[in-house]
């Protein structure tokens, strides 16, 4: 079992590195886009709200595999010279951003209305209330759910490798090792260990963030 890993460590490690980069880049895209969309979702204007809602429904309700097809062969057939990496990161990032937006929105709404009203009555402007009163409190409540989304994203990243985008990620490398060695159980066990390393790391990071910003109750 350990022999399979040491014999093929180059492939497993390069796969793990590809998955790590894919997840890190997609996470950035998801958080930046998700925050922007969440801002639309909590804006006072009804139409701005709906625009954000449409974005969330489109990308949350479309299967990731379909998004990958649109982002890679779909765009290429429409004349966009998109690469496999860009397509993979864009699809996974945009897909996840819809979930991030929903979590951030519910976090903002979880802050009691009286808080914002109190801020406004003390003479803060609307953006100041958002930045200084609502968002810091909202951030605490969303750390946990964001951790779950990140872990789901790590697992979803395997779809990018298995799809037509075919990035050489951890699962793909494990399948290549399997096809060369025919040691199916061991190959996939090591892939599972790799994914577990990533998800446990993310769990630890989010746990520590959570305890650092936790409200003492």
């Amino acid at each position: 079992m350990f022999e399979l890993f040491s014999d093929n460590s180059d492939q497993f490690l390069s796969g793990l590195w590809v998955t790590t980069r894919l997840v890190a880049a997609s996470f950035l895209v998801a958080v930046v886009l998700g925050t922007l969309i969440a801002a639309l979702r909590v804006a006072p204007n009804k139409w701005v709200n709906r625009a954000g809602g449409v974005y969330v429904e489109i990308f949350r309700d479309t299967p990731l595999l379909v998004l990958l097809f649109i982002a890679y062969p779909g765009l290429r057939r429409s004349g966009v010279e998109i690469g496999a990496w860009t397509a993979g990161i864009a699809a996974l990032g945009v897909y996840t951003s819809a979930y991030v937006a929903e979590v951030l929105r519910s976090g903002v709404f979880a802050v009691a209305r009286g808080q914002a009203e109190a801020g406004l009555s003390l003479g803060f402007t609307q953006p100041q209330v958002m930045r200084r009163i609502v968002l810091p409190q909202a951030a605490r409540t969303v750390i946990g759910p964001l951790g779950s989304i990140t872990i789901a994203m790590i697992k979803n990243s395997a779809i990018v490798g298995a799809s037509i985008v075919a990035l050489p990620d951890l699962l793909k490398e494990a399948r290549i090792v399997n096809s060369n060695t025919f040691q199916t159980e061991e190959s996939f066990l090591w892939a599972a260990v790799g994914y577990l390393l990533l998800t446990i790391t993310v769990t630890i990071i989010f746990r520590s963030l959570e305890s650092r910003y936790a409200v003492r109750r």
Partner: protein
Amino acid sequence: MKSRWFTTACTVTVLALAGAGCGSDDGDDGGTTSAASTGASSTAAPAAGAAEKFPASTTMGKIQARGEIKIGVKYDVPPFGFKNPRNDQIEGFDIDFGKAVADALGVKPTYVEAISDNRIPFIKDGTADLILSTMTINAERVKEIGFTNPYFIAKGRILQKKGGGITGVDGLAGKTVCTALGSTYEETLKKQAPKAKLQLVDTYSECLELIQNGAVDAVSTDDVILTGMIIQDDSLELVEGEALTTEPYGGGLKKGDTAYTEFLNGVLDKYKSDGRWATAYEKWLGQYTGEKQEPPTETLDSVLAAAAG
């Protein structure tokens, strides 16, 4: 109100579980059917009149008792194995040989999709009784599964867009080449074109998509599979020059099943000698390529020896 919600939730859960249960039953019904129909095998296989009856302990006998042979084939590799979108039938050169095997047993052929990456596990775990899926006989695979004598000899070639500028295997340096994960070309390309960038996908239809939309520069695999792609899209062409490899296709079966191997080789010999092989060749390849080919005379041992030497 609360209890009603609880009831609804329970009902939904139970239904979902029941649905999942039914789904997984489908996967096992080969086993249960074979157990149930063992006693009634004479009625289960009405076409068995012409077929030889095999002892129940042999693989052939078990297949006859079940009334169907499960054959793993490609669903997306015309002209060898593909699902015809017009009538949903599985067709091709591999399928015609599969029918000949089923006829010899007097049973009905049923097909499962076996992609390059899962066909060997399918043999090992009994999902398929026989694999006819453009599978090359080679030394690594012989360690895992058994093979029939070759029923077709393909050549390894490269496909590019017309005017792509690749002139030989050396021209692949720095280019992106698509092939199927788990196929022999992964190794072949690493050896013969070490500077090429490999794009490993699950199915050859994905390679066709990727070369059509320009994401890869070339596709490398067996000439007949590439010919199938050219039949679908005539803006593609084969790169001239010597073949990369020789790829003898064999039928895959459980390792060490000598009686079953001999039976399959017997069916193949008859298939080759009575003209059915030539008919299938003309139907699936000859009429498109304009080429003629004789049935292969090589045996499993001779192709393994040739590969080793």
